């Protein structure tokens, strides 16, 4: 292995160089930095007269025309695939756990009955929506927002990717609810849809939270190297 070792300042300059090329996330920088630094050290060892900056240019050329882009793209793809796997595993675990099944069915049935009750009593105070639909929709949006806030989703690539893979089918709640009181549709149909969507939304939120936790653990593992 190379005997030339880059100092802290030179490593910082390499990190800044990667950033200047458009790869600003610390996780991506870490993914590229070691290889880049090894390459620079090798160039400086082969030709001792080479300046650090010339070695950087030579090392950069060895990454090819696409530069760091293929590494960044495949790293992000790998993260996405990991979190998608975690998400669906948790989704099916939650949906099929013996204890969860009766609880989820009870919750769905409760929402079904509440929706019918509100419909009979003409409780439609928000945008002419059934009030139960409105409350559930708002509740779902708030729950999503809380998860985003607690997990500081925007702060790093791991959490951003994890949040991005979550299955947002229950967002249909928002679209369906204002249209769920059509005169030609039997009244139990929208109530049933609401019940099913609530079950899906709860499972989705549990799976999303578990996925975000995995992303947070992954982030914590590499965070210690970010300021190195």
């Amino acid at each position: 292995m190379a005997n030339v070792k880059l100092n802290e300042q030179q490593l910082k300059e390499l990190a800044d160089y990667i950033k200047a090329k458009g790869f600003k996330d610390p996780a991506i920088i870490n993914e590229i930095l070691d290889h880049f630094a090894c390459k620079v050290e090798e160039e400086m060892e082969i030709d001792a007269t080479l300046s650090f900056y010339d070695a950087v240019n030579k090392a950069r050329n060895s990454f090819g025309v696409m530069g760091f882009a293929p590494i960044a793209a495949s790293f992000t793809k790998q993260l996405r695939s990991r979190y998608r796997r975690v998400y669906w595993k948790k989704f099916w675990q939650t949906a099929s756990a013996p204890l969860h099944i009766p609880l989820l069915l009870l919750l769905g049935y409760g929402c079904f009955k509440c929706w019918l009750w509100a419909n009979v009593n003409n409780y439609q105070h928000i945008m002419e929506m059934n009030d139960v639909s409105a409350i559930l929709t708002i509740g779902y949006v708030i729950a999503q927002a809380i998860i985003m806030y607690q997990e500081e989703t925007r702060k790093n690539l791991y959490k951003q990717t994890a949040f991005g893979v979550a299955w947002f089918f229950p967002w249909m709640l928002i679209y369906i609810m204002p249209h769920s009181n059509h005169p030609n549709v039997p009244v139990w149909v929208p109530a049933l849809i609401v019940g099913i969507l609530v079950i899906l939304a709860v499972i989705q939120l549990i799976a999303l939270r578990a996925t975000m936790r995995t992303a947070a653990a992954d982030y914590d593992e590499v965070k210690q190297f970010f300021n190195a």
Partner: protein
Amino acid sequence: MKANEPNPVIKGSLTAIIMKLLENNSRMYGYEMTKAVREITQNKMNITEAALYPALHKLVEEGLLETTAEQVDGRMRKYYALTKKGKKETIAKIDALKDALESVQILLNSKLSNG
């Protein structure tokens, strides 16, 4: 072919090469792999970064490799190692590559005629 040009033949067998390297060395980091290939083949073969890392990430994604990160020389170094599944798969991948190379060898040594 120049040393820094991606060789399509190598690209097709890259997975097997990576797994063989890890079978022999238990754990390696990306740069170490490219250097090992250059040294073993006396610079006749070069694995480019653009080919290596997507292949490594794909192997991790498939559960054939696992990674550990360590602080080395002031930066994060990611080591790759074969998982249990990866160790089993290595034998199959290398056998498949050997079979393919043998077939190519037979083809190249035979007098090909059309009809």
